[in-house]
């Protein structure tokens, strides 16, 4: 099932320059709100609808997260890759949509294409 591009459509979201200065852009595509994140020049598209209680998951703080190193000392990781839903603080990995506390909860993700400095989401 690798070649499904034929039945998918591209939707323009933003220019690469715009994403670089904003770290994320939220677009409405086919009735869905989809956020595209720029993580060091890589783009990730995630649904802006929280799997918890429907909050705007991708509008919250984009930061890293607390973890522990091998010595079990507190450290900070994934800077710029974790978005927290502003309603109750559920953290999601923007690269995979996965909820950090339980991978059973995943925000839908979408394919992103870049063409001529323009960023598109494929649905």
């Amino acid at each position, binding site marked *: 099932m690798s070649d499904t591009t034929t039945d998918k459509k591209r939707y323009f979201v933003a220019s690469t320059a715009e994403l670089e200065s904003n770290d994320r852009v939220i677009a409405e595509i086919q009735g869905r709100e989809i956020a595209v994140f720029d993580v060091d020049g890589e783009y990730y598209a995630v649904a802006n609808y929280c799997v918890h*209680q*429907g909050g705007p998951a991708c509008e*919250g*703080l984009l*930061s890293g997260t607390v973890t522990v190193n091998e010595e079990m000392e507190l450290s900070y990781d994934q800077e710029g890759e974790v978005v*927290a839903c*502003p*309603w*109750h*603080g559920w*953290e999601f990995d923007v690269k995979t949509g996965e909820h950090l506390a339980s991978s059973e909860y995943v925000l839908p993700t979408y394919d992103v294409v870049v063409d001529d400095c323009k960023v598109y989401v494929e649905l």
Partner: protein
Amino acid sequence: MVETSKIQRISDLDTVVDCDFHLVERQSDILPYIEEPFNKMLSRSTGDDYGYLSNLYPTPGFLTPVTTGKVQSETVRSPEDVRRGMEMLETDRSVLTPTQNLYLACVHHDELAGALAGAYNEYLLDTFIEPNEGLYGAVVVPPQKPQRGAEEIEKHGDEDGIIAAFVPSGGVHPPLGNSQYEPIYEAAESKGLPVMMHNAAGTMMKNFPQQFHGLDRYLSTHVPAHAMQHMVNLSSMITQGIPVKYPELNFIIQEAGIGWIPYFMRRFDAEYSGKREDAPMLNQQPSDYIRDQFYFTSQPLEGADDPAYIEHTLRLFDGGNNLMFSSDYPHLDFDHSDELLKMLRGKFSDEEIENIYGQTALSVYDF
């Protein structure tokens, strides 16, 4: 299994009452209403250059998701803020509850606690209460000064839009079954107001200081704090016969989830069988008093990913008659209105769902 449910969404409900909608009043919002001598004592313009000595309400110093910015709570300091929240939640009536004053029982000066309660009540009435628009509230009583609490109830209990008395029950000492609190219960019963009991996780710092310091994180404190403080107060109240002495008085127990309720009722009955001499005033099973005179608000609903758990648990304490919807908006663990409804549809009758979302509240509060 209920076959035909007409109620699919919140807008299908007749009346939605939110039993816990928080103002986020600041100390500076209520100080303009404070009585003497505190008004004079606090009206100086300089004094605290340390930045924290002006806080009259002790704070636990939690590192929370609000502190880090991972939760972005709305503010509620004006009637417009309330309306915005109610629109989002699709509710018809809100029972307005405090935030800062959840810590009232921790205030380290009994007369000041009384004055702060008085100031909050004036602020509430002056700024928010508007029954025509669904904005109702509760008279806050200072647990340190039960007689003053009774006076607040006497003073405001008949005002339009005041529908309950509110005991900030976290941090109270001794627990609420002690006879010193009886003036509060007496006044509330005579005004026909139910007594709401609401803790805050950080109030554990006062009545469970060793545990509070030992837990050392917000998460580990917050998990047990609400239910354990309620269990202590309820244990004291029922053993001391408060529901027997005030048979017309109802209590509303807030913000501790649901699973502990059937556990607590059954444990109490089981223990009572062998220790009845400690509670000679009771003439029914302890759980009967809970069923008759105690109501519980729904948030924070644990197990919302497990419909069988919710159904079973609610059935175990007659939730169709004793549970009342609450959002806890705008706090960091608030429940959206349809969170519970999703679990009830198809499992509870339309009548039970209407009860949980508003009809029970309409009869328990003094609307």
